């Protein structure tokens, strides 16, 4: 396991490994998306209180979860990069930031579009919503810092520190619905005594959760490969990927 992790830290090995994994990840992601969307939007029954508006949940909840997972991963990659100076970890942290920001953005926008018909307001300064908005700013701050220096390694260190410090916001978001009286409803899936949501709605939700996890990993690997090539463009292994120099179709 450790040896394998160590090999993954080598840019050419990581590049090839990610390239082999990507087609499988995208295929699995598209299948889950198709099943999850059909099930969630067509087959699942309307909610007895919220009617059809609750169907926003199938995109809102997975996005919100992934916005947190992406942040934890970004902070972990950053910590690995700060401690061991692994270039691949820097690249992964840099590559997951826009994806995490996208999921946060989707969670906020879909939440707003769900809040308007249900609460009567697009936005309220509630603990859950506010802490999620802060998460978006943390991502944007990370992206800004990571592109503020000419030297990619110094940029990664500055941004990495921000990522590691900002991780305190993650438990705040998660527990905000318990710590404060919020308009945002509490968790119905992860709780003691099992989920309090009908199976006909829970199953499509779980499939969408799987689909978006697959999306995150596929998009992350794709971005990371790009970023690696960009950083190592003058290295020998990248030039060896060019057509007519042995491994012909690898630079794609």
């Amino acid at each position, binding site marked *: 396991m450790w040896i394998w992790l160590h090999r993954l830290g080598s840019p050419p090995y990581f590049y090839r490994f990610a390239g082999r994994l990507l087609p499988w990840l995208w295929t699995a992601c598209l299948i889950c998306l198709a099943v999850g969307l059909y099930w969630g939007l067509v087959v699942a029954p309307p909610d007895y209180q919220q009617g059809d*508006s609750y169907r926003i949940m199938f*995109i809102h909840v997975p996005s919100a979860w992934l916005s947190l997972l992406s942040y934890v991963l970004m902070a972990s990659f950053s910590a690995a990069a700060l401690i061991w100076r692994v270039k691949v970890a820097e690249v992964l942290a840099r590559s997951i930031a826009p994806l995490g920001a996208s999921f946060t953005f989707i969670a906020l926008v879909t939440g707003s579009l769900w809040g308007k018909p249900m609460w009567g307001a697009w936005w309220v300064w509630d603990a859950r919503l506010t802490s999620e908005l802060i998460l978006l700013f943390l991502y944007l701050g990370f992206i800004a810092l990571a592109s503020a220096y000419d030297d990619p390694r110094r940029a990664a260190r500055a941004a990495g520190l921000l990522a590691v410090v900002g991780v305190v916001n993650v438990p705040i978001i998660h527990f905000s619905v318990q710590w404060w009286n919020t308009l945002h409803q509490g968790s119905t899936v992860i709780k003691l005594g099992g989920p309090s949501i009908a199976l006909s709605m829970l199953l499509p939700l779980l499939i969408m959760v799987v689909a978006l996890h697959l999306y995150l990993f596929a998009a992350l690997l794709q971005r990371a*490969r790009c970023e690696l090539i960009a950083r190592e463009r003058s290295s020998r292994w990248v030039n060896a990927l060019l057509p007519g120099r042995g491994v012909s179709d690898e630079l794609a």
Partner: protein
Amino acid sequence: MPCYLDEGLAMSWHEFLYMGGYGFYVWSAYGVAAVVLITNALLPVFRFRALRREIERGGER
């Protein structure tokens, strides 16, 4: 589009898009998500092509 089989009704396209009156909210939510996710998936593809051309020209930065 078969749905609500227990009521013996097949759902029509109109019903599907209407979403019990919440069509605007539901479809805007999915529309925004689709645009963001598809853009994120496609950007690296274009960047890859540009990088490849640059490296093939033998260009260093």
